[in-house]
């Protein structure tokens, strides 16, 4: 229970359905420290909201102190990922570690038969297997963030909100007379309330100097940049590079020599990528050896696009070839596999991949398959 509308309604629904419910809230970081107010309580308003809701619906509620493991499993990898020139998604790491490893462990220890969360995603079960599907409310679908849920975890978790829309959730919050019915959805990364992640990278990263040069794709040097962790593939704003005929984007971040490669948008086009640490939720046997037709999604804000998947170069890896080239594919982000609404799993995008080859003189003519 985060103290937000979704998990609150989830708890109230389960109570209404007659389940014996225990409310759990994870204390993930020191709220006072995160907002630089040392005299502020370690818990934010959200924990108090969660307690109020639990009290209202008449269930016991406990706060689990996961500060240390959240720092180890989420915040530090987040900082280190930026330092590798990647664009991390801490919410997925959090789901993978503290939420679906430690919280499930705690729930089992407390005698629970299932762990329910307020995620918008569906779970289906038949005699043979448990499967994961996109939410009924496609605009709220959180499947991108949950691709790493393993079959074992999936057997234990439940997502009651996957079947309803966010609007219906708000109506239910009103119906249950929950104080948080009008509470705004959270937007930012929870432990970066100010939206500035560079402080976190400075504080929790390795501290290694990462300044280097901007290099144009055509090879010419474009001056110094102030550290690779400040850039993300596909970024256009805030580069401080002018004087070019067309807008410049970050095309690639070369970790070894701290180079940030910039170029025109056309150079962002990716045709094929390799993903690592694949979690496979499709038919038994893992990622197929021969190419299989799927839809792939490389950002939460993108719609899945048609692609082919097959086993990758190394263990736990897969190769994903897009029918049409994709723009703004960032190493460190997730690539999630779908078959229609069913989630087949996903993996983490690795650096490299194959750029689409477009003759230089044709580059400004536009490319099919542009993504927003």
């Amino acid at each position, binding site marked *: 229970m985060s103290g937000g509308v979704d998990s609150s309604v989830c708890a109230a629904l389960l109570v209404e359905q007659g389940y014996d419910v*225990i409310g759990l809230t994870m*204390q993930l970081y020191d709220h006072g420290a995160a907002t630089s107010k040392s005299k502020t*309580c*370690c*818990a934010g308003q959200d*924990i*108090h909201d969660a*307690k109020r809701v639990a009290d209202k619906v008449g269930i*016991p*509620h*406990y*706060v*689990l*102190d996961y500060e240390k493991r959240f720092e180890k499993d989420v915040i530090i990898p987040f900082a280190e990922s930026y330092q590798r020139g990647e664009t991390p998604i801490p919410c997925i790491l959090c789901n993978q570690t503290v939420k679906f490893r430690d919280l499930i462990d*705690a729930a089992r*220890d*407390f*005698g629970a038969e299932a762990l329910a969360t307020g995620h918008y995603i569906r779970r289906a079960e038949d005699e043979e297997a448990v499967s994961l599907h996109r939410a009924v409310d496609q605009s709220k679908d959180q499947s991108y963030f949950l691709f790493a849920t393993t079959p074992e975890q999936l057997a234990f978790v439940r997502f009651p909100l996957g079947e309803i829309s966010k609007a219906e959730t708000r109506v239910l919050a009103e119906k249950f007379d929950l104080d948080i019915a009008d509470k705004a959805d959270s937007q930012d990364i929870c432990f970066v309330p100010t939206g500035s992640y560079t402080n976190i990278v400075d504080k929790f990263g390795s501290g290694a100097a990462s300044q280097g040069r901007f290099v144009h794709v055509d090879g010419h040097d474009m001056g110094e940049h102030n550290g690779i962790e400040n850039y993300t593939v596909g970024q256009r704003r805030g580069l401080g590079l002018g004087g070019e005929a067309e807008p410049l984007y970050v095309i690639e971040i070369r970790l070894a020599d701290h180079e940030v490669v910039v170029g025109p948008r056309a150079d962002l086009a990716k045709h094929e990528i390799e993903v690592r640490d694949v979690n496979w939720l499709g038919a038994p046997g893992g990622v197929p050896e021969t190419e299989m037709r799927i839809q792939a999604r490389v950002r939460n804000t993108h719609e899945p696009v048609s692609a082919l998947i097959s086993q990758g170069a190394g263990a736990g890896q897969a190769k994903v070839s897009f029918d049409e080239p994709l723009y703004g594919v960032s190493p460190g982000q997730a690539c999630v596999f779908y078959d229609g609404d069913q989630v087949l799993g996903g993996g983490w995008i690795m650096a490299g991949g194959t750029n689409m080859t477009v003759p230089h003189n044709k580059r400004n003519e536009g490319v099919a398959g542009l993504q927003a």
Partner: protein
Amino acid sequence: MAIPDDRIYLDYNATAPVYPEVVDVVSSALRDLGNASSVHAEGRSVRGTIEDARDSVSNLIGLPSQSITFTSGGTEANTTVIRGLLDSGAVSNVYCSAVEHPSVLEYTDPQHQIPVDEDGQLDLGKLEDVLKQHNAPFLLCVMLTNNETGVIQPVREASDLVHERGGLVLCDAVQGPGKLAVDFNSLGADFLTFSAHKIGGPQGVGCFATNTDVALEPVLIGGGQEKKRRSGTENAAGIAGYGAAARITAEKSDVERVGKLRDRMEAALLEARPDVCIFGQNGSRISNTTNIAIPGISSERQLIKLDLAGFSVSAGSACSSGKVSTSHVLLAMGASEDMAQSAIRISIGVGTSWHDLEKFVAVWATL
């Protein structure tokens, strides 16, 4: 605040169940109209209620009633004395034992916190060493008995050492009354602080007691109540309830029965799980408290599972969020981080029976 039938309450050091007589006294006092500072009949009547309570509270600790200043509780009492002495210039430095309550600890620098030994008792040798290097007027804060472990501190000896060097002593005696005899004069401290809800009185009321006339700069200023030491309209109903709880506590002692129960429970706990550790067991403890660690099982897990099974215990000092933090008291006693993080406190009292503890031991053994 009665204990529900389906629960077994073993957290008396957090707060004790209110005596039914106290509920009646508070309820009756709430019905009485009047502000104790008013000249009229109603005001005089409320004044009388407050002064009767002051007599009862002072009687419990063997001091004349004018020695008592009512506050909103133990924390405010500690704050009023410490900050009052600092602000008046009566003292310029504050020392304390490393196992004090946060309302005291927060006033001191780590180098001014005197260590305790592995049994949890203030190290008098270290205290002497620290005081030797000291000249300016100072205050030492040492609690009568620790809220987490029940370990009784050598307040008399510490007070004598401090007084030899011209310092003052504040003794946080919040966990004392009802668990051991508290006699102001034999303790030797200059200030004692108390809280009503630890002895079956209402929450939100407490006091400090002193026999000195050292200047205290008031923290709360305004109407000049409590001889200008604590302004603000008195919590008359709460104070009346405190008086009633003090009378009951003075009249009936349950210390011996409680001590036998606790010792029997500890024997049963150790028999069920020989690998556990009871903190402060070799030292001098009050008779109602057990602090016990099960290595490898976090306090958090133990508390939650016991709560779900119907037992109320606690660990460390809970943050307002409900997050269970590692006990600074156990760390100060030399416990490892792991051990300190796997300890819980069981504190019993007048309402506890062997039947309750038998059930508790049975469930605890399965954690």
